[in-house]
């Protein structure tokens, strides 16, 4: 008889689940379309209006602007992460999953491994393609950036990390809330509503709180020179990773304590 189940066999199981549903395929396709498509729209629009808007030339960042599509793709990756978990609860298959692997932390770890590896691949390819395409569109009219510059390379690669980490946040919310609709509402609120609420606060508070928001962290990570009052790219990566880790630890704790 073959050996006992291991984490590797649980990862294999989760990989079969991840790739065998339409929602994953759709989610990945939408991530590509949003990142690359919106990147193309933004860069083409900037190229068209470049000469007529000289006031925009000051402090222009060819990297951040070309990666603008990630602002939309972040919802797609959040949904991919959340649905990977909530679909098990909505269908009831979580019971079969936990009966097959009663060590629940292994299930959470395996899902995390599958999600992170898949999203890392998808996001990095998406941001690299978008960046190169954006620079090609800018070329000749708008100043461009090159990946041979280490700061530019960092900004592009961190763009992929940003998307991956938001996928992990979506997954952790999935374990904590168990319902797709609840997850998507909370996720959207974190990204979209939080900045609006902060905007209504006094400016000293805005500066203190604003830099901790996921969307601000994303801006810091994807820019060559991070905005004022924000974390540097490395600091933002650390803070966002910390969020993802804390949420996943909370998720694993809840998973092991609650009835399935």
């Amino acid at each position, binding site marked *: 008889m073959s050996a006992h189940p291991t984490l590797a066999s649980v990862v294999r*199981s989760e990989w079969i689940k991840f790739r065998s549903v339409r929602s994953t395929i759709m989610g990945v396709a939408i991530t590509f379309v949003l990142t690359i498509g919106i990147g193309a729209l933004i860069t083409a629009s900037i190229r068209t209006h470049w000469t007529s808007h000289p006031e925009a030339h000051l402090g222009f960042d060819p990297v951040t602007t070309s990666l603008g599509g990630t602002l939309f793709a972040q919802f797609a990756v959040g949904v991919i992460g959340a649905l990977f978990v909530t679909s098990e609860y909505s269908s009831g298959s979580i*019971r*079969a999953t*936990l009966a097959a692997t009663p060590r629940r932390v292994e299930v959470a770890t395996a899902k995390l491994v599958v999600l992170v590896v898949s999203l890392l691949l998808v996001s990095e390819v998406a941001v690299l393609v978008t960046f190169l395409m954006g620079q090609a569109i800018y070329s000749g009219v708008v100043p461009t950036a090159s990946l041979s510059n280490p700061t530019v390379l960092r900004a592009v690669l961190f763009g992929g990390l940003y998307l991956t980490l938001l996928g992990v946040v979506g997954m952790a919310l999935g374990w904590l809330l168990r319902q797709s609709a609840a997850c998507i509402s909370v996720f959207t609120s974190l990204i979209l509503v939080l900045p609006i609420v902060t905007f209504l606060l006094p400016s000293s508070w805005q500066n203190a709180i604003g830099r901790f928001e996921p969307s601000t962290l994303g801006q810091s990570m994807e820019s060559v020179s991070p905005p004022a009052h924000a974390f540097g790219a490395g600091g933002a990566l650390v803070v966002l990773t910390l969020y993802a880790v804390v949420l996943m630890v909370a998720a694993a704790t809840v998973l092991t304590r609650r009835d399935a």
Partner: protein
Amino acid sequence: MIAIEHLTKRYRKTVAVDDLDLVIQPGVVTGFLGPNGSGKSTTMRVIMGLDRPTRGRATVNGRPYHDLRDPLREVGALLEAKAVNPGRSARNHLRALAASNKIPFSRVDEVLEFVGLASVATKRVGDFSLGMGQRLGIAAALLGDPGVLLFDEPVNGLDPEGIRWIRDLFRSLAAEGRTVFVSSHLMSEMAVTADQIIVIGKGHLITQGSVGDLTAAAKGSVVVRGNDRERLERALRAAGATVEVANDEALRVGGLSAEAVGQLAFDHGVVLFELTPERASLEEVYMALTAGAVEYGSGAS
């Protein structure tokens, strides 16, 4: 073997299972009966390590479910029909389960063939009928060729041919020496499927025993009609029987055998026109046993 010791499970204020003690033996089909909401599914979820007991414990082959090294090779369960992502194919669902326990994929095709789903193995489970969903659940339970099997309401949604098939399946699994634990809210189903029967109501054990034991324990009654009802009634009551007037001047006598009633009538000079022993059916026994434990009764029944 499955053992349940002093199991209590409370969900906020409701007590689903209350101090339950059970042993489910291998080699026989054990029917687990009770009205809806009596705690059958909760008990099964606790056995499977899905719900944590408030008190007490459940073990499979002497160990709590969490400590099983190869869960799918030791225990197989059908807890819910069609509890599968509707977008996934039957084969991929089973392959994911198989992979987690290092069961070869060839076994997936074997069980699909066995339950009669081989021709729809690559179809989305969302398009399956309830009966096909049950068959897929049975395939999942059999995947690891386990010695202990649990089925929660397995006949729901099956057509008559499917019901016969599943009955034969339970019998053959038990004949191979496996532990087969099947829940149902229908006594009529269990009467023809199970060897041993456990009846619970409101989370308590009501009774357990073989199908034969249960019907034997059920007190039958004797319908008797004679030429002097009042004298007969007095004699019967004096002998300690319970007596009620049935139709047509007949008496329904409880607590005495037909022989004893006949002898009593003879001793008191009553001429009998009718002496009919009536045995309660298993269904009636079950209804009587669980009468106090039905959570959502229809009142008039």
